[in-house]
Structure formats: structure tokens, C-alpha cells
């Protein structure tokens, strides 16, 4: 039995074990049943974390060894059995999900999020492993509903409307064979194919919370891990669906396919970063950065489609490598940010920036981990995010020279959007870190913050180390990405085959030639040591002194840390950009806004709160149970 087959069986076991207890636990959480004794959260969380860790190791083995395994289950619609496939591409995308959920299960206080995270793990595994259109569509719908349920959005009416519409669209993969023959690009010139393309794009956009769907702005209770993790994983899940449907499944995409991903991706990236720039809550800033990452990935998808339409296989491989590397780094960064946010909210009692401050003194490990994650999300050099952004930019510049004028102009405008997004996210990341961790505490609770539990600190350190390793040695990440390229791009297989015969044209040209972070880091270290030595030997030793108060009156005795209002805060660091930025960029319209469907949901939301909450809780368990029952009870080929 091959490594891939073993890994597939392990993943299925993990998915089943994660999904079934979570499924069984959901009615209990909904208040329908008393919570069973066997579902006490802590053992469940520990067991799931260990299993997810093992599955992540299996995915790494598949990426190193290569190969694919397919399993056809005797279930499903008549004539369409449920198929599950594990290949290097799937393994690569599953890796951050498994690592992230394992980390959050370890870091979650008292294992409270085990049921939600287990369900998310199970559905993510099903979504990524699905080999046939109905299973993919079903998994997409279930995943989107679960994400919406976990995140508890701040604007329930609009979000619920968008969720239902998104869920309908997420079912698009199931309709693709009906619409366009066997694949979305079965015949790329037909209207059916165009419709299939549009539906597939909307399905991916709804999963990734990209325009026209509203940004996932959750309103979380302090310390809740699962909603933050759900928001962090949305870019990866949406991008996985888009890559599967538009890149891997399409034999020869037409050139116009790239227009929408490039335009929407650039606007979404800039919009997400702008949202992160003006928001004042940690979780909302994370949501903005998640949208920015998803937008950048969508631009990468557009570049890949453009390169494939122009019959430039090496450029397609370059664009896809950048996309995947950027996606992996962004997901790990967002997960680190989510866990750090949860730790801060739990230990400092708030997620509002104006109630935090000076946490680097009280929570040093969390602050340093947050710094690594934010630097990576801002794509600063020598971080993991920079390597993917660098490759993506190289692909964009090469595409501009190779494509037609209209496409080149569109790519140029996308680069402008990505530049704006990079600038805004750099400001947002620095603002978040400075207000949260530097300066003086802005509330007594922040001044008395205690260290998070040891598992949380270890998890943050492990994720930060992984990001640091990827940042300093992006070639390691690229070695894992190359087999995934071969699995997605039809021409990538031949490229990889050439590479394994010794010529390695693909790997060599995809390598980070022209950007060697280790060399740069070494040079910077030497310079830093010399500077340090020069300052120590030639200058006077520093002395601690009371800071000049800027001429303000002394604070009263009951403000032992000085007047916190005198320091730079979230609003002052966002000014004047917050006023210069166009409002539509910060508040993109949430669609549908005034449609009959939205009005219907508005009426629903006006019902008494108890009834509304109760019905909301019942939706997901009922759907999940129905879906799994359909999967298990409908034997494959029953109608034949």
C-alpha cells in the first residue's frame, strides 16, 4: 500500500472521528440533549489534536514521496458514488488546516472549542478530498454553513442572507457537470461553460468571504478560539475550491476568465487591508487581514488563468507556486494572529485596542509571536509572507510583458491594488502591535494581564518558529509546493517529470533566484553586530530616565501608569489615512442588501430573540445530519 493510500485512510479516520463526535455534540450544544459524559471537552480536544498532528505528518510524507490515492465509497447519488482523492495538492492545502486546528485545540482554554473545531476539521477534510462534483458541492455548502454558524457575525440579518445565498452558490460545483458537460471547460466557448465559470467563481468567493459577499466581521466573546480560526481558514478553503474548479479542472481556460479574479482580488485585497487599518478590535482587524490574504490569492489565481490561456506553462507554474506559497504563509500567519488574539482577549480581558497596551511587559511570548505573525501578513522581507508575494509579483511582471495590452493593463492595475494592500496592511499591522503591546496599559485589566497557559505559549512559539523557518528558507516551502503544482497543472506533470530526470528546468527556474533571504539575513546580522559593537565601544552607556511628559499636567495618583489617553492610540495612528480612504473601500456593499430575501431575513430577525436563537442553532445540525445520512444511506449506483 502506498504512502498516499495510508495517508488517505488516516485522514478519513481523523475526519470521521472529528466529525461524528462533533455532530453528536452539536445537538447537545444546541440544548436539545444533555451533554454526554463522554463528550467532556478536554479529552476530546486532546485526542483530536493528536490525530490532526498525525494526519499533518502523513500529508508531509505524501508531499515528499509523491503519488495519489483514490477511494470510491459505496455511497452517494445513483450513478455518482462518493469519491475521495488524496494527492500532493490536497496534502499541501490540508497541511495548514490540520496544523492550525491541532494548534488551536491545544491552545483553546479548557478545550471549549472542541466540537466546533472538530466539525470544521471534518468538513475541511471532506471538502479538500472530494473527487466528484456532488460531494464537493455538498461539502462546500456544509462548510459555508458551519463557518457562518461558528463565526456569529456582527450583522446577523445581512450576514445570514448572504450566507444562504452563498450556500446556494456553493452548491455550484455539483451542477457543473450538468451545465458544461464533464468539466467547467469541457467546451470553453459555450454559454453553459460561461455560466459554469461564473457559478464556480461565486462559490469560491462565497467561501472566502470576498466581494460581492460581505467580509466576515465576527463579534466574538473574549477568548473564543473557534470563530477566529474559522475566519482565518476561509481564504484557504475558498481558494482551494477556486483552484480545483478553475485551474485544475479546466483544460484550456479562455483569456477572459482571468479578468474577474484579477479585478475582484485586487479590490478585495486593498479593501481588506483598509478595513484592518480603520477597525479598532483585534478580531475585526484579523478579518480584514484575512480578506486581504484571500484577495491576493485570488489575484494569483487570475495570473495562473492568464498564463494558461496564453499557453505559457512555466509562467503558470510560477504564478501558482507564488499563490500557494502566499496562501500557506497567510494561513499560518492568520492562525497565529487568531491564537494570539484569543490569548490576549482571555488574559487582558478585551479585544478593543483602546483597552489594551503595554502587553509586551506582561505577555512577552504572546507579543513576540504576534509580531512574527503580523510581519508575515504584512509581507515584510525575511518573513514567510514575503517569499510568496515576491513570486506572485514576479509572475505579474512576467505576465505584463507576455500578455496582450488589455490583460497587461489589468495586471498593472492589480499590481497597484496589491501595492495599496501591502501598504495598508503594513500600517495596520504596525498599528495593531504598537497599540496592543507597546506603550502603557490603557486599562487596569491590561495592566494586570497574566501569562497564558503553557500549551498556548508553546503553540504560539511553534507557529512563530514555523513562520520564521519559512521566511528564512522559502526554498523549503517551495520544495513542498512543486509536487502540488504537478498535481494541479496538466503541464506541471511533464515539468516535474523533466525535473526528476535531472534537468530540473521547472524547479531551478521556480527557485528563489535573485532573492536569498538567508544571505540577506546573514549580511544584516553582521551589520547589526558591527553597529552594536561600535555603539558600545564609542558611545556612552545608556541611563534610565523619567520621560518628559510633553508639558501635560501630572496624572492623579489613581493613574499609576500615567494618563493612558496621552499616548498614541488606534484612532490617531489611523489618521489621516482613515479620512482620505474612500468609504466604499472600507465598507464594501454587502450583497444582497435590499433584496426581497434580505427583507425576509430582516423580518425573521425581528422575532423574539429566544425563538430566533433557537432556530438558528437547529439549522446546522439538521443539515449536517441530513447530509451525512444521505451520504451513508444512499448506496452508489442504486438507480442503475
Amino acid at each position, binding site marked *: 500500500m502506498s504512502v498516499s493510500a495510508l495517508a488517505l485512510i488516516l485522514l478519513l479516520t481523523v475526519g470521521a472521528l472529528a466529525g461524528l463526535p462533533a455532530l453528536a455534540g452539536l445537538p447537545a450544544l444546541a440544548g436539545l440533549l444533555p451533554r454526554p459524559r463522554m463528550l467532556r471537552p478536554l479529552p476530546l480536544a486532546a485526542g483530536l489534536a493528536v490525530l490532526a498532528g498525525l494526519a499533518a505528518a502523513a500529508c508531509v510524507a505524501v508531499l515528499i514521496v509523491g503519488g495519489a490515492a483514490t477511494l470510491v465509497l459505496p455511497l452517494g447519488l445513483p450513478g455518482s458514488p462518493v469519491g475521495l482523492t488524496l494527492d500532493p495538492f490536497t496534502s499541501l492545502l490540508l497541511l495548514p488546516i490540520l496544523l492550525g486546528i491541532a494548534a488551536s485545540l491545544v491552545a483553546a482554554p479548557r478545550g471549549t472549542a472542541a466540537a466546533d473545531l472538530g466539525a470544521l476539521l471534518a468538513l475541511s477534510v471532506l471538502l479538500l478530498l472530494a473527487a466528484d462534483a456532488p460531494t464537493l458541492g455538498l461539502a462546500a455548502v456544509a462548510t459555508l454553513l458551519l463557518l457562518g454558524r461558528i463565526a456569529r457575525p456582527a450583522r446577523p440579518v445581512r450576514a445570514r442572507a448572504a450566507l444562504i445565498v452563498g450556500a446556494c452558490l456553493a452548491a455550484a460545483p455539483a451542477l457543473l457537470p450538468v451545465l458544461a458537460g464533464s468539466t467547467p471547460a469541457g467546451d470553453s466557448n459555450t454559454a453553459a461553460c460561461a455560466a459554469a465559470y461564473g457559478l464556480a467563481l461565486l462559490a469560491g468567493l462565497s467561501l472566502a468571504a470576498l466581494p460581492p459577499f460581505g467580509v466576515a466581521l465576527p463579534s466574538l466573546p473574549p477568548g473564543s478560539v473557534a470563530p477566529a480560526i474559522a475566519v482565518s481558514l476561509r481564504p484557504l478553503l475558498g481558494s482551494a475550491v477556486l483552484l480545483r474548479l478553475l485551474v485544475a479542472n479546466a483544460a484550456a481556460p479562455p483569456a477572459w476568465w482571468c479578468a474577474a479574479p484579477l479585478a475582484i482580488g485586487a479590490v478585495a485585497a486593498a479593501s481588506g487591508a483598509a478595513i484592518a487599518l480603520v477597525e479598532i478590535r483585534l478580531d475585526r482587524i484579523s478579518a480584514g487581514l484575512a480578506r486581504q490574504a484571500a484577495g491576493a490569492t485570488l489575484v494569483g489565481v487570475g495570473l495562473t488563468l492568464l498564463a494558461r490561456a496564453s499557453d505559457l506553462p512555466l509562467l503558470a507554474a510560477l504564478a501558482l507556486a507564488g499563490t500557494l506559497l502566499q496562501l500557506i504563509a497567510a494561513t499560518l500567519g492568520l492562525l497565529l494572529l487568531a491564537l494570539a488574539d484569543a490569548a490576549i482577549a482571555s488574559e487582558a480581558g478585551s479585544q478593543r485596542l483602546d483597552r489594551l497596551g503595554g502587553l509586551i511587559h506582561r505577555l512577552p511570548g504572546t507579543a513576540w509571536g504576534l509580531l512574527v505573525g503580523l510581519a508575515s501578513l504584512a509581507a515584510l522581507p525575511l518573513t514567510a509572507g514575503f517569499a510568496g508575494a515576491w513570486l506572485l509579483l514576479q509572475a505579474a511582471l512576467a505576465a505584463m510583458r507576455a500578455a496582450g495590452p488589455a490583460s497587461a493593463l489589468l495586471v498593472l492595475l492589480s499590481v497597484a491594488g496589491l501595492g495599496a494592500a*501591502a501598504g495598508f496592511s503594513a500600517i495596520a499591522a504596525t498599528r495593531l502591535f504598537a497599540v496592543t503591546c507597546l506603550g502603557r496599559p490603557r486599562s487596569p485589566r491590561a495592566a494586570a494581564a497574566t501569562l497564558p497557559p503553557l500549551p498556548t505559549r508553546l503553540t504560539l512559539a511553534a507557529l512563530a518558529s514555523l513562520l520564521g523557518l519559512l521566511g528564512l528558507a522559502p526554498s523549503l516551502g517551495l520544495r513542498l509546493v512543486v509536487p502540488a503544482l504537478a498535481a494541479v497543472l496538466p503541464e506541471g506533470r511533464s515539468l516535474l517529470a523533466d525535473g526528476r530526470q535531472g534537468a530540473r528546468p521547472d524547479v531551478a527556474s521556480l527557485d528563489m533566484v535573485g532573492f536569498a533571504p538567508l544571505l540577506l539575513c546573514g549580511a544584516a546580522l553582521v551589520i547589526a553586530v558591527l553597529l552594536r559593537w561600535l555603539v558600545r565601544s564609542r558611545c556612552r552607556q545608556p541611563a534610565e530616565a523619567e520621560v518628559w511628559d510633553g508639558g501635560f499636567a501630572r496624572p492623579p495618583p489613581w493613574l499609576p501608569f500615567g494618563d493612558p489617553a496621552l499616548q498614541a492610540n488606534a484612532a490617531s495612528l489611523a489618521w489621516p489615512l482613515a479620512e482620505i480612504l474612500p468609504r466604499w473601500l472600507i465598507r464594501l456593499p454587502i450583497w444582497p442588501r435590499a433584496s426581497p430575501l434580505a427583507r425576509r431575513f430582516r423580518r425573521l430577525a425581528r422575532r423574539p430573540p429566544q425563538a430566533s436563537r433557537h432556530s438558528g442553532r437547529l439549522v446546522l445540525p439538521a443539515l449536517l445530519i441530513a447530509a451525512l445520512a444521505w451520504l451513508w444511506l444512499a448506496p452508489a449506483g442504486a438507480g442503475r
Partner: protein
Amino acid sequence: MSDALAVLLLLVHAALMLAAAPLVQGAVDRAASLAQGRVGPPLLQPWRELVRLSRKTTLVPGTASPLRQPALLAASTLSITASLLVPSFCRGMAGAVLSDLVAVGGLLVAARLALVLAALDDGEASSGLGAGRLLHAAGLLQPGWLLLLAALALATGTTNLDAMLGALGEALPPAGAASLALLAVLALALADSEAAETATLDAFSGADLLLASHAAWLRRLLWLTLLAGLIPPAPGLPASLFGLAEGLAAWAIKVLVLAIALGATQGLARRTALRVPALMGLGALGALLAGCLLIATQRAA
């Protein structure tokens, strides 16, 4: 060219950049003063400032965190590393393979963000105001820089600055696009150096202020060197000792003229913080138009 010569040239380049940064600052200040009808400080005044600061005791606020010193050191280190990647008087130095414009821009932004973190560390009002201005200047630099990079890459086919200068030396892009690209670099350089100086004065003292000031001056010299490289004659490969001397003289003259022009512009214009976004926007627009022109030209060719 041997590796030893390449390393030697890099060391000479590093020494020149580090030593010339205060001098160029002196020229900019002098030109700004003359433009305002004043005599202005002597050319060597920035060097005297550095010596004076090295003799003063560095005061560290009681509320400072362990991040303050590493951040300040990182700001200086990243600025120096970026300056090593921009060729001055010749091409083909030891760091030529690494002189990628994406990395240079990223290092400049990272250096500024590190300085912002160091300035915001003590939580004081005055340093926070300056740090906010620096933060926005750093973020707003990115779109213009990436668009400029795209325009230059369209013209030369590479993002490596060393190769880019070589390609520009062989064949110049169309005059319209080249003018727009130069305008973009000038606007970005003006905006970047506009936000830098006063912001650090309130936050640091002694050796810390020395490091921050020198990093800001080095950054200005980096911009001028980049601009000088784009203006013909482009620096060439070191074929002979005479060629090196010629390249050195060309670089010095171009940088001096640009420093005087920059100082005169800054002196004549009124300094306000709100000009930085406008200048950054002008730079981005110039680069975008240059890119559009280049795309149109490529199709026509």
C-alpha cells in the same frame, strides 16, 4: 571580474555610502537654507552632530520595553543593508545578485516600521505624533514603489537593479515613459525624506538618536543614488581603474546636483505633513502612467 574584486568594490561602496550620507544631508540643508534666503549650516554640520551625539548619554525611558533597542538597531541595520544593494559608482559588486528592487523596497519599509515601533515604545505623546507620520509615509510608499518597479521591469525585463541599470545603459526606454518614471522616483524620494527627520527628534537621544539620524540620511542618499543610476550615463561594469574613477565622479556629481535640487525644492516648498500623501500619490500616478505608456509602446513595436 574576480570575486575578490567584487567584494572589494562592495566594501568601497559601503564605506562611501556610510560616509557620504551626512555630507549629502549637509548639502540638502545648505541648499534649503539658501533657497529661503539664509546662509545655512556648514556642509560638515551633520558629521559634527554625529560626533556630538556619540559623546552624550543615551536616556532610556523607564517605560521602555525590551523591543526598543532591537527595533532601533534593526532600523539602522535594514537601512544599511538596503543601501548595500543599490549600485552607486559601478555595477557587478558582490551583492549584485541580491540587488532586487522588491527586496530593497521591502527593506526600506521594514526599516521605517522598526523605527516607528521604537518610537512608539515609551508611550509618550510627542514621539507618538512623529511616529504616526512616519508610519503613514512607510505604508504609502508601497503602491508607488511597486508601480515604479512594474514600469522599470516592463522597460528592462528584470527586477534586479544591477541588471536593470545595465539594460538601461544599453537601450533607453521611450522618452515619455522615462520622464514619467523619473518624476515618480523624484516624488517618492521627496515624500520619503520629507516625513523622516523631525519625527525621531523627540523619541531618542544620544547614541539612539545618532543611529536614527544616520539611518534617515542614508535612506535619502539611497534615493538619490537610485535616481542618479536612472539618469544617463548609467553605471557600468568595472573594466579598468579609469572606468571606476569615471563612474565615481559621475555618481558624485549626479548625487550632489540632485541633493542641491532636492534641498532647494524642500526649502521653497512649505513643509507640512499633509504633503506626504499627495507626493506619494503623485509618484504612484507617474509610475502608473509610465507603465501604461510602456505597455502601449510594446504593443506598437
